[in-house]
């Protein structure tokens, strides 16, 4: 069966919801037809907004595709994604490893901390960090799969919140 990418990601992450092991499996399957930039970005997003026992990571939900798409409409954003990811890969190579996506979680976090701490306001790593985080958060929480755990049950409509006058999750 030939799923669209977004459809595939949704299907897979629904099936795996709540299981970190399942989420790893999604990543492995999805990487087969992805570009190097997409593979790197997916890992980057999964580090910024990682999977846990409650919800998939941003990369698992395809947020990197959404950012890539969104970048097409903004001057120089595609270039920033390429340069930012190259910057991250270069840091990794200096550590003697292949690329950002090949790192374990702990090392990925270290690289992102370097980007975040860059004091030059307009540097590639800082801008890359800032924009991917801002847009990543925006896209990530636009997926209902990110809501379990924080207690947001469903979009405001069509059922609304008729229990609004009680403490949340208390029976009438």
């Amino acid at each position, binding site marked *: 069966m030939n799923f669209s990418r977004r459809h595939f990601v949704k299907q897979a992450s629904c099936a795996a919801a709540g299981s970190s092991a399942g989420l790893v499996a999604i990543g492995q399957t999805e990487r087969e037809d992805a570009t190097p930039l997409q593979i790197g970005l997916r890992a980057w997003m999964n580090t910024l*907004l990682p999977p*846990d026992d409650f919800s998939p990571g941003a990369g698992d939900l395809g947020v990197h595709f959404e950012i890539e798409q969104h970048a097409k409409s903004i001057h120089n954003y595609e270039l920033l994604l390429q340069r930012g990811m190259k910057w991250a890969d270069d840091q990794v190579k200096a550590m003697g490893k292949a690329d950002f996506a090949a790192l374990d979680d702990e090392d990925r976090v270290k690289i992102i901390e370097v980007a975040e701490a860059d004091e030059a306001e307009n540097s590639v790593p800082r801008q890359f960090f800032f924009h991917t985080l801002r847009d990543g958060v925006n896209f990530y*929480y*636009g997926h209902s799969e990110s809501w379990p755990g*924080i*207690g947001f049950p469903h979009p405001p409509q069509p059922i609304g*919140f008729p229990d609004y*006058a*009680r*403490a949340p999750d208390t029976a009438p």
Partner: protein
Amino acid sequence: MKSAEEFDAVIVGSGAGGGTMAFGLTRKKMRVLILEAGPRFNPFEDYKLAEETWEQQGFPHKPESEGRQTFAELQEIGPELDDLQSWNAVAGRTNPTKRRSPHKYHHVRGVGGSTLAFTGESHRLHPDAMQMKTRFGVAADWPVDYKTLEPFYSEAERIIGVAGPENPGARWRSEPYPLPAHAPGFPSQKLKAGAEQLGYQWDQNSRAALSKPYHGRPNCNYCANCNRGCPRTDKGSVDVTFLRKSEATGLCTIRTGVTVLRIEAGEDDRVKGVHVIDEEGTSEFIPTRRLVVSCGAVETPRLLFASGIGNESGQVGKNFMETIAWTSSGLHTENLGSYRGLPGDSICWDFNAPDAIGDGVVGGVRFSTGVGEAALNGPTAYARRVVGGWGESHKKRMREVFGHVLSVGSIGESLPNPGSFIDLDPEQKDANGIPLARIHSHLGEGELKRLDFMAKTAREILKASGVTELVEEYGSLSHFSATHVFGTCRMGENPDDSVVDEFGRSHRWKNLQIMDASVFPSSGGGESPSLTIEALALRAAAGGG
């Protein structure tokens, strides 16, 4: 399509003023043509609150559903006012400059006007707030008093289906609200307890949101998102109330995407008609026997200026009053599930009378629940404004605090001053070559004192209600951000210092009426304006020429 001659009146704009005028005139069996610059919104299709990306979408503006305005340079902010700067836990100060920043005149161009995005608080003006000149020597007196307006308030409330409390407070009523007040939400219960500890009275708010099915519209289901457009149609915006009833008469024709560029003056102190352009770029002259201008307090003066008409008093564009607002938000110790409920469901009127604050501060303020209007009601807002960060710690903190935000919003009197006015931008024009409206705004000493009182009291109420940590404060000092604008064609008895009379009739042009928020002589002490605009319009249509 009927020809222009077949209409008894042409109304420009279909918001609170224009839509209600259409209702009032069609009820008198008059044939009305509404020219509306914006599009029609279909609540069932356009308001996407059932989608998982609801929070990313905001109010679903369409092409041409927002006009453009410019701003003259706003005032400097000295360090002595640091306590009134806007900030949030993630970004820090939202305006790092030393000057007020022009955020936005929030409005909607569309059938129903700005009420499409309004919260739907439905307030009568405090009777004492209508005599500000006589009593305090500021602003101007209303040429109509509360008693005269009261039957029209009641009628507007019946048409909308306003849900309100039994106790009317300072605003006496000739009849109860058509619908019972909404039960206060869980966050409001906390605020009530906190406010009462401080000796303040915290009541249910009167709301243009149905507490029971009414006139073929369902009741509210407490989705907390009135400002994104109500997909149930229970919110009493003008499209589903006054205009729905007007169109049902068969006497009201609405042309959308039609912008009025200029009013043409005729002989005998009468206007002849309007020059318009439609979405296809087709220009047309539409003659009329009676013209009602209802473009809102920013665009109405612009149209009059562009037409060279109506400013015999020199008051057009002057006396601009804006929304003086403050919101403090913090984290409550308990999970309140505050993403639920009816925005602004409770209110404190204790400081709403013009002399209620004391210490020589003239003009009142009110306090209400503010989570919904602050849009702190979804995961994205929490992530961006409350929690911040990234990685595991971000997700953990989201789990800890989501649903805990409690907000107190406050709106206060805005008094006219020479630094606040609307004129035409000398350089920037719209696509039709008409200069844009330029907003000049200055916060006077009284506004700053009121803001200070609003901020301190909001924080005090939050603390007493169980909030332990503030996470965001947003106010008019850092940003011009107005949803309520008034005063730029003020009404009055004297043609020398007012533009129109108590029925919105031009003092000079016999068949020209202005009916929208621009006719307000004073703003009130934080009351939301739509119900008053609608009461004025019902009265103007019933009796005004």
